[in-house]
């Protein structure tokens, strides 16, 4: 076959195949354009899952008739300075989206810049452009896409149900809305009421409001503000956002929202950083909830590595990772003892469930029967003496297991209700400490809490006392890939600090001379291989730390106050004060909360006072 130059229509359709995978991709491109145009209000309407209609209306800069002609031309963009391909400040930069969409659908753009009295319109029907004409339109731009994929029936076959496509559109809009609290969004996907995200500003309160509207109240209540700055490869960078308390977690990472320069991304490096920061605070296999916005200088990140711009490449990945881990860890450490407020909500729910089914509760007297209502009769007085049943009954009290609730009517010396975990009021079931706070009460699981305290102490001791090393009679020789052996040996100083002494042993092998004494007799070869694999994949020596931590955690479990032990008020108050002072004490080593808080308002709700 002879070589031919492809027609512009074909080129556009091929490009469309990359950019426009499904209706949600069109919505993404159009909303990004509106954001780039400086809009403050964006309205999105779709029908038929976006296949029959997508309409995006904005109040941004608008386009002149001349702009309109160019906008639908391939590689026409107002956003890229050809002098500096790496200086990308807008969401769009390729000048590809509109012509691509025009090649596979019926595209109509109506637009009017603020300073023009008259609007203009252009239409592209499956690649053929009609001349620009006048049109009546408000300030801003309306883009309408109809009959998407009608020119490429093959693509239609791969689409999911209308509902699934509409969901994908919702997802795209939410992600963009999350990054732009200063823009109001309205999304209408069907017959139902539209989703409205009111316009706010870029203050952290407004941001949390917007994120909460998307991720849910539960997240809002348990969110910690994250904020950090550092220097990137060539310019400063910063990270901002909200991270859920470690006690709040999900099975998958669908509630992890990561943005780079306002662009939603799925990035391995960032996901790895999140995992590293949460570390052992979260049970294995669970994912934290968070929304983080990383801003780096355009020159320090390459966004042009993925057709849909979902992946990015950093010039200095190490610094980005370090900044992320540090900012997150700082936020998590300040959380200290704070545990999930979820506990409180769950508690209220279970209380509520507890009172409903009781048949013993008399129905509220109806108005006409009101006078018939009589106070409940008192329980029959104890009658009879000796061994009659009535006389025996009181002793049954002693059989009741763990009915022991040690209460302390007298406030403990130094009233502490103002402290975050309050003043101890009682110990119940020999494992739960009930304390009163200024605005509610907390219930502490004494075993779990103490276990965490011991664990954190051990870890701190490990960290500053250095790790004692046990010499090996016979050095263990571990065979590895050449590269792995070299990487490991290069990091040997760091490993020595963690108690592992290795040295190079010819090509593709290392000799282990000393191991952390804490590990006792351990599978040296397995440990070294795990370490090599980790250093290869994300540059951390987590395996060793993990193992040390897990020994520490096991030891913590043995050294802690078991449930079932009665504590004095002083002991309990001391426990609460230690929890307040210890980072990460809000959950136990197994990721469960160490205490739940019940707000006075929750309690009032239980009694129908609210």
């Amino acid at each position: 076959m002879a070589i031919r130059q492809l027609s512009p229509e074909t080129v556009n359709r091929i490009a469309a195949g990359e950019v426009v995978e499904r209706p949600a991709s069109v919505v993404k491109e159009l909303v990004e354009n509106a954001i780039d145009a400086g809009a403050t209000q964006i309205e999105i309407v779709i029908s038929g899952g976006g296949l029959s209609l997508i309409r995006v209306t904005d109040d941004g800069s608008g386009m002149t008739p001349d702009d309109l002609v160019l906008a639908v031309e391939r590689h026409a963009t107002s956003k890229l300075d050809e002098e500096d391909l790496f200086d990308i400040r807008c969401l769009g930069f390729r000048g590809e989206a509109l012509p691509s969409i025009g090649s596979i659908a019926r595209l109509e753009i109506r637009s009017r810049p603020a300073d023009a009295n008259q609007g203009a319109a252009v239409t592209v029907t499956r690649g053929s452009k009609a001349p620009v004409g006048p049109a009546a339109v408000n300030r801003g731009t309306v883009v309408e896409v109809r009959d998407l994929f009608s020119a490429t029936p093959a693509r239609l076959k791969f689409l999911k149900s209308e509902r699934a496509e509409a969901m994908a559109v919702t997802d795209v809009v939410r992600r963009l809305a999350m990054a732009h609290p200063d823009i109001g969004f309205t999304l209408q996907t069907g017959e139902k009421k539209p989703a409205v995200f009111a316009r706010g500003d870029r203050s952290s309160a407004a941001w949390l409001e917007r994120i909460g509207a998307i991720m849910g109240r539960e997240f809002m209540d348990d969110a910690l503000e994250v904020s950090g700055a550092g220097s990137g490869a060539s310019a400063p960078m910063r990270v901002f956002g909200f991270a859920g308390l470690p006690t709040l977690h999900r099975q998958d990472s669908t509630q992890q929202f990561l943005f780079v320069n306002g662009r939603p991304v799925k990035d391995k490096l960032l996901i790895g950083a999140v995992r590293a920061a949460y570390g052992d605070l979260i049970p294995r296999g669970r994912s934290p909830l968070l929304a983080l916005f990383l801003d780096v200088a355009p020159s320090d990140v390459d966004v042009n590595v993925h057709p849909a711009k979902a992946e990015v490449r950093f010039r200095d990945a190490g610094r980005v990772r370090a900044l992320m881990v540090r900012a997150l860890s700082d936020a998590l450490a300040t959380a200290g003892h704070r545990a999930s407020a979820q506990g409180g909500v769950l508690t209220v729910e279970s209380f509520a469930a507890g009172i409903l089914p009781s048949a013993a509760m008399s129905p509220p007297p109806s108005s006409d029967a009101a006078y018939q209502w009589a106070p409940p009769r008192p329980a029959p007085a104890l009658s009879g003496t000796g061994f009659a049943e009535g006389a025996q009954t009181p002793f049954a009290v002693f059989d009741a297991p763990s009915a022991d609730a040690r209460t302390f009517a007298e406030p403990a010396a130094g009233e502490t209700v103002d402290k975050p975990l309050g003043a101890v009021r009682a110990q119940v079931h020999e494992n739960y400490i009930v304390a009163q706070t200024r605005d509610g009460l907390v219930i502490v699981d004494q075993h779990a809490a103490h276990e965490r305290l011991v664990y954190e102490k051990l870890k701190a001791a490990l960290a500053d006392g250095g790790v004692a090393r046990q010499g090996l009679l016979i050095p263990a020789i571990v065979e590895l890939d050449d590269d792995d052996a070299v990487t490991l040996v290069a990091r040997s100083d760091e490993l020595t600090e963690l108690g592992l002494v290795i040295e190079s042993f010819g090509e593709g092998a290392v000799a282990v001379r000393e191991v952390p004494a804490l590990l006792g007799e351990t599978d040296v070869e397995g440990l070294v291989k795990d370490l090599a694999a980790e250093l290869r994949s994300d540059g951390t020596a987590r395996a060793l730390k993990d193992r040390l931590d897990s020994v520490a955690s096991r030891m913590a479990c043995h050294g802690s106050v078991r449930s079932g032990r009665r504590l004095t008020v002083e002991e309990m108050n001391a426990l609460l004060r230690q929890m307040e002072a210890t980072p990460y004490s809000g959950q136990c080593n197994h990721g469960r909360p160490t205490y739940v808080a019940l707000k006075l308002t929750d309690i009032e709700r239980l009694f129908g006072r609210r």
Partner: protein
Amino acid sequence: MRLEIERGELLKALSHVTSVVERRTTIPILSNVMLKATGDVLMFKATDLEREVSESVSAKVATPGTLTVPAHVLHDIVRKLPDGAEIEMKRDGDKERLTITSGHSRFSLQMLSADDFPDLAVGEIGHEFTIEAGDLKRLIDKTRFAISTEETRYYLNGIYLHPAETNGTKTLRAVATDGHRLAQVELPLPKGAEGMPGVIVPRKTVHELARLLEDTSAKVKVGVSQTKVRFEIGPVVLTSKLIDGTFPDYGRVIPHNNDKEMKVPNASFKSAVDRVSTIASERGRAVKLNVGKDKLILTVNNPEGGSATEEIAVGYSSGPLEIGFNARYLLDIADQLESEDARFLLADPGSPTMVRDGGDGSALYVLMPMRV
């Protein structure tokens, strides 16, 4: 099968054999003990596929036969019957049940056919020798603390028993190591053991053997082949598979040039280590030994728990030395020592230290130091 037997005989044999039976197993027959009645003996046999224990006791056998019943249940029943009771065991015709009657008690146990009972038959035993029970006990008791429990190094999960030579005397030598410390004990080579191969006796077999040796003073007949070992202790026979692996060349780690000798009074050393390590509550804490002219200072430093120091008068005239050891390892070794004085042969804080039991040349211990 039908027989009568005295409770004491039965209980002794059952407690010998049932200890190898795993409490939880996926192969039902392995929970059972085999009973084989012939002539005027009742033979018991139990196994976990790696080792088997059998024992024969005399019984009044009316009808010979072979069958298997749940071992722990049978053991528990016999244990609870009164002292001196006469017990009758009888299979009810063709029914798959064994009835046990004694006095007014009567039990009926579900049995399994003995046809499927695994047999660890030794095959060719190439080498046989006899050894005093006390000597064998010493070989394993003084070395077994050093057996490795790390399964990836399976070849260290037992005691290496082999013929050797020390100062021109042929010996039977037992060695165990976990890579952190090593224990070696030997005795003159018994007749018949000359050509035996070096074998690694698995940890569990070692513990079983130690138990069986507890209440005997008889001679033990040992048989060794390439893959199995057999110990005949009176009426009890323990047969075990060997660990199929190569024991490392341990000779290399035994230091020969440690010239700093410290003579330590055993009893006070043992209790001093025990006392100071009270502070070393957790695993992996070091006891520091400060050795100076005729003086040893033991220290444990635990940033959270406090510290402990104790001074002992020792015999030492080389240069001062500071060296750390894992507290537990030191205690383990101290526990093995019997003579009045222990001899520590030291080199430097990073090299292995040798410990000897006073004048007793037949036992030696090597310990790798710890560093902080």
